[in-house]
């Protein structure tokens, strides 16, 4: 029952992504192409999602715990480090090249389109690469200063 509910949460997300245009790379790239064929639609996606989440989270966090779990699993770090900024910059370059972000591409896997599948497989390879890099070099580069 819990897993069925979780499935439907994914369905709402996937439907929202599809309706919004976030899974259409041409539309995403046009949002960033202010100097060219600009399409401001994605500002409305971000705005709608942020308003609902901002209000909804405040209602949800009034409870001591979520319905199906003993506690909230919310990240509490506040430090800004090179890994956060550098990783985000690398992600931005990839998003600009392809027009696919993870949240846009994952639901689009359901279309079975070979270009989406190619992107998604490459993205997962990048995730494994990140895990490997963090394990290999993490202690030296990334954890030199203790997290607060």
């Amino acid at each position: 029952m819990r897993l069925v509910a979780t499935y439907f949460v994914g369905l709402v997300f996937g439907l929202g992504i599809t309706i919004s245009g976030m899974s259409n790379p041409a539309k995403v790239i046009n949002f960033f192409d202010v100097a060219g064929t600009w399409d401001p639609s994605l500002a409305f996606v971000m705005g709608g999602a942020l308003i609902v989440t901002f209000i909804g989270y405040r209602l949800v966090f009034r409870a001591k715990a979520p319905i199906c779990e003993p506690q909230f699993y919310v990240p509490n770090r506040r430090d800004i480090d090179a890994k956060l900024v550098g990783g985000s910059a690398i992600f931005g370059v990839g998003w600009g090249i392809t027009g696919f972000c993870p949240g846009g591409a994952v639901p689009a896997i359901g279309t079975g389109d070979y270009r989406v599948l190619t992107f998604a497989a490459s993205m997962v390879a990048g995730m494994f690469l990140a895990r490997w890099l963090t394990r290999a070099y993490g202690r030296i580069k990334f954890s030199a200063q203790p997290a607060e």
Partner: protein
Amino acid sequence: METEFTPWLSLFGGILIGTASVLLMGLRGRILGATGILSGFFMPESSTDWAWRAFLLAGMFTGPVAYMLLTGSWAALDVPTPMNLLVIGGVLVGLGASLGGGCTSGHGVCGMARLSPRSIVATLTFMAFTGLTVFVIRHLMGA
């Protein structure tokens, strides 16, 4: 290539994305971030941590199918990028979003809604670099 400005559909889609984010927090206490959910699916920490990710991902995959059943046609999917750049860009997205601890959904929606300073910095950073990359490809390289 021009795309149609769709403020109402995009706003409605965004409201659904926000609704799903709130529901996942209320049910399972988790951030709805595509990067974290996907990498946790392939590199799970425990068997109990895996199942909810699998069901959530299955729900996401059926999103475009539900759209097709509701409207009678598949949503627009225009990919202007050649295959070799899809591979390179895909690796960069997976690598960068993992190192940066999230993407548009995790940092951009869930983290920003929590006013997390890390998420605000991450979102501003990747938005800036995406815009810069699009500008370089389209206007300096003329692709």
